[in-house]
C-alpha cells in the first residue's frame, strides 16, 4: 500500500450482453443501412478508408434488394450456384453432425449461419488462388465442387481417407482444390498464407492467397506477425476474420471487441480494412472481389472482418446453452445468410419457394447418397479404417532407422495380440 489516498483500482473483465436465461435484445444494435457505405477505388491508400473498418458493408436491404455501390451485380447463374452451395453446406453439416451423434466419427464442426463467409468468398476468388482455411470453412471445398464423398471419407478416417486417418475429422487437406491442410493450432495458417502470397509475388505469378481465422484467434501472435509481414511486403493476400461472436464459450469481448472492431486491426498496420455483413452473401462477394482485385493489382493486402453469428455450438463437444442466451441466434439482427440470399433471388424473379424446397430435398439426397458411398469404405470405429502400414510413413520423405525399428515393433505387437 502506498499510503496515498487513492481509490482502489478495479480490473475490467468483459461480460457478454446475454447469458442463459436472459432474453436476447438487440434493440440497441446500430443496424447499418444496406448500400450506405462508399466503395473506394481498389488502389486507394489504406489511410483514406479508415471509416470502412468501423462501418459495415451491406448490400441486401431488409426486402432482399441489392443496394449501393458494393452491389456485385452477379449473374443469375452465379447467384443460384452460391445459393445451392450454401444449402448443400448446411445439409452436409446437418447430416455429418448426426453421423457423429450416431458414433460414426469422433468429432464434427458445423458452420451454420456462416456459410456466406466461405461460399461467397470462394466464388469471388479464382480457383487457383490459394486458400488457407481455419476449421469452419468447409464451404470453400463445397463451393469449389470438391466431391463431398471425399470430405466424408476424411471425417470417417476410413480406408478411402486420403489423409490416411491421421487428422481429426474436418481437418481437410486438398491440394487439388488449392485448399491448405487445416491445423488445429489457431491462426498458424495466417503467416503461411502471407508467405505463400509473398512467394507468388516474388515469382511474378498472378495467383493470390486468402486466409481465414476466427475473431477469438486474432489474439494469437501469429495473427499479428502475419499482419506485419503482409503490410511490410504488400503481400497479395486477403486476411479474413470470421467474427462469429463466440470462441467456444468466450464472447468476442475477450478478443478485444469491446474496444474496437476486428477490421480496425488493419489500421495500425497500414492495411486496408473492411467490415462486412457476413450474413450477406453479396456483401461478402463484393468485399472479396474488391480485395482480390486490389491484391492482383499490387496494391497489397486487405483485412476483412465478416460480422456474423455462430448459430450452433463450437463443435460436437460443446453445449452452447450453458453459456449463452437460447434465443440469441434466432434474434440475431443480421438474419440468416441462406434466407437472405433466397429472398433476393426470389425478388429478382429467378427463383421461387417451390424450387427452393426442391433444391433442399436434392441437396439432402445428394449428401445422403455421398454418405452411403463413403460408408462403404467404413466409419471410424467399425474396423474398416485405415491400414496400419502407413502409420510410420510421411514423418520424413524416407523412413529413418528409428522409425523402421518402431514399425517392426508395432507389427510384432499386433502379431502378438493376434490382430
Amino acid at each position, binding site marked *: 500500500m502506498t499510503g496515498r489516498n487513492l481509490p482502489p483500482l478495479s480490473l475490467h473483465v468483459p461480460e457478454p450482453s446475454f447469458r442463459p436465461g436472459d432474453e436476447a435484445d438487440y434493440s440497441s444494435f446500430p443496424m447499418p443501412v444496406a448500400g450506405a457505405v462508399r466503395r473506394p477505388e481498389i488502389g486507394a491508400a489504406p489511410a483514406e478508408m479508415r471509416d470502412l473498418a468501423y462501418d459495415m458493408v451491406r448490400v441486401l436491404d431488409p426486402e432482399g434488394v441489392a443496394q449501393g455501390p458494393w452491389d456485385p451485380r452477379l449473374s443469375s447463374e452465379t447467384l443460384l450456384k452460391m445459393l445451392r452451395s450454401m444449402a448443400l453446406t448446411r445439409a452436409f453439416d446437418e447430416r455429418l453432425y448426426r453421423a457423429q451423434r450416431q458414433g460414426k466419427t469422433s468429432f464434427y464442426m458445423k458452420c451454420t449461419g456462416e456459410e456466406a463467409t466461405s461460399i461467397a468468398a470462394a466464388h469471388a476468388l479464382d480457383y487457383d488462388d490459394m486458400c488457407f482455411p481455419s476449421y469452419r470453412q468447409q464451404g470453400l471445398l463445397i463451393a469449389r465442387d470438391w466431391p463431398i464423398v471425399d470430405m466424408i471419407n476424411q471425417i470417417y478416417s476410413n480406408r478411402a481417407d486420403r489423409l490416411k486417418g491421421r*487428422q481429426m475429422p474436418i481437418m481437410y487437406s*486438398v491440394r487439388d482444390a488449392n485448399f491448405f*491442410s487445416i*491445423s488445429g493450432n489457431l491462426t498458424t495458417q495466417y*503467416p503461411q498464407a502471407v508467405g505463400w502470397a*509473398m512467394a507468388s509475388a516474388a515469382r511474378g505469378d498472378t495467383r493470390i492467397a486468402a486466409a481465414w481465422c476466427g475473431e477469438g484467434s486474432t489474439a494469437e501472435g501469429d495473427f499479428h506477425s*502475419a499482419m506485419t509481414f503482409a503490410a511490410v511486403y504488400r503481400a497479395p493476400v486477403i486476411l479474413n476474420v470470421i467474427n462469429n461472436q463466440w470462441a467456444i464459450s468466450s464472447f468476442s469481448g475477450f478478443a478485444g471487441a469491446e474496444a474496437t472492431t476486428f477490421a480496425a486491426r488493419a489500421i495500425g498496420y497500414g492495411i486496408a480494412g473492411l467490415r462486412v455483413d457476413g450474413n450477406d452473401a453479396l456483401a461478402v462477394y463484393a468485399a472479396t472481389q474488391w480485395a482480390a482485385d486490389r491484391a492482383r493489382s499490387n496494391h497489397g493486402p486487405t483485412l476483412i472482418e465478416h460480422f456474423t453469428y455462430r448459430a450452433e455450438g463450437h463443435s460436437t463437444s460443446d453445449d452452447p446453452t450453458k453459456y449463452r442466451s437460447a434465443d440469441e441466434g434466432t434474434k440475431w439482427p443480421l438474419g440468416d445468410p441462406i434466407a437472405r440470399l433466397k429472398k433476393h433471388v426470389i425478388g429478382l424473379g429467378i427463383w421461387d419457394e417451390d424450387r427452393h424446397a426442391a433444391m433442399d430435398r436434392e441437396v439432402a439426397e445428394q449428401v445422403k447418397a455421398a454418405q452411403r458411398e463413403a460408408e462403404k469404405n467404413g466409419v471410424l470405429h467399425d474396423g474398416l479404417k485405415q491400414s496400419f502400414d502407413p502409420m510410420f510413413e*510421411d514423418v520424413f520423405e524416407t523412413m529413418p*532407422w528409428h522409425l523402421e525399428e518402431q514399425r517392426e515393433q508395432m507389427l510384432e505387437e499386433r502379431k502378438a495380440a493376434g490382430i
Partner: protein
Amino acid sequence: MNMIQAINSALDVSMERDEGIVVLGEDVGYFGGVFKATEGLQKRYGKTRVFDTPISECGIIGVAVGMATYGLRPVPEIQFADYIYPALDQLVSEAARLRYRSAGEYTAPITVRTPFGGGIFGGQTHSQSPEGIFTHVAGLKTVIPSNPYDAKGLLIAAIEDNDPVIFFEPKRIYNGPFDGHYDRPVAPWSRFPESAVPTGHYRIELGKAKVVREGADVTILCYGTMVHVAKGVVEESGVDAEIVDLRTLVPLDIETVAASVKKTGRCVVVHEATKTAGYGAELSALVQEHCFHWLEAPVQRVTGWDTPYPHSLEWAYFPGPVRLTQALKRVMQD
C-alpha cells in the same frame, strides 16, 4: 575458409543452382547478417531472393512454411537460437507435421539456420543450446557441424533435403576451433585442414557421423564446439579415446555410434545444453539399448548445468576440459 565463409559459400552455391532458394531473416539482406553469413548474397541474387524481415521469429518461420508450400525452398535465419521460441509452434506443429498430416500433399522443405551455444559472453539470451527440444519433435531433422568443410557440405545437403531441417551453427567456433581453454588464444581455421573448403558444390549426407579420432578405451560422443573440447582433452590426458562427431542428431547414425561403443566398451556423451532430458539422455539410452552387453562402465554425461546460462560465470557453466577429464577418469576407473 572459416565456418562463416563456408556457410556463405554453401548458400551461394545452392542459390546459383536452384532459383527456388530464398534467404530471409533479420539483417540478412543488405547488411549480410550480424555474423556476415549472408554477406553479398542480396547483391548477387536480388532483394526478392535475399531479404530482411521484421523482428518476428514466428513470422519468419510461418512465412517460410508458406513459401515452401508455394514451391520455394526457403532458408530462414533465426539470429540466435535463443530467439527461436516464438517460432516454436510454427516449427513443431506446422513445419514438422505438414507432410504427415497432409499425407504428403504438402511439405515444408525449409532449412532454419541458427547460431547456438555459449562461450562468447552472451548471457542467458545468446548462449543456449536448444537442440534437444527439436530432436524430440517427430518430423524435424537436426544438424550441427563442427568445422568449415562439414558446415558447407551439411548445409547444402540440408537445403536440398525435402524435410524441414534445423541447422545449428556453433558460433563459438565460427572463426576457429575452441578446445575449451578460454584463457588461451584461439587459432584461426586457416591453420587446420578442415578449412580447405572446395568452392563448388558438394554434399555431406545427413545422418552420417564421423569418427574424428580413432581410439580403443572409450568413446566420446559429441557435436559442434564439443568436438574440439574432446580433442583437446584427449590430447592432454593421453586417454586413448575414440571421438565420434555426430554431425546429425536426427536422424542419428546409430551404426557408427554402436560400432564405436562396442569396440571401446565405454562411453561419455558431451554437450553444452542442460543435462536433464537433454540429447545426452537420449544418447545414453540408445547406447544402453544397443551396447549393454559390451559396456564396462555406466555411460557418463558431460553437459551444461540445469540452470540458465549465467553471464559472469560462463566458464563455470561451460562443460570444458576439467569436467570432461573427470568424466573420462570416472568411466575408466570401472
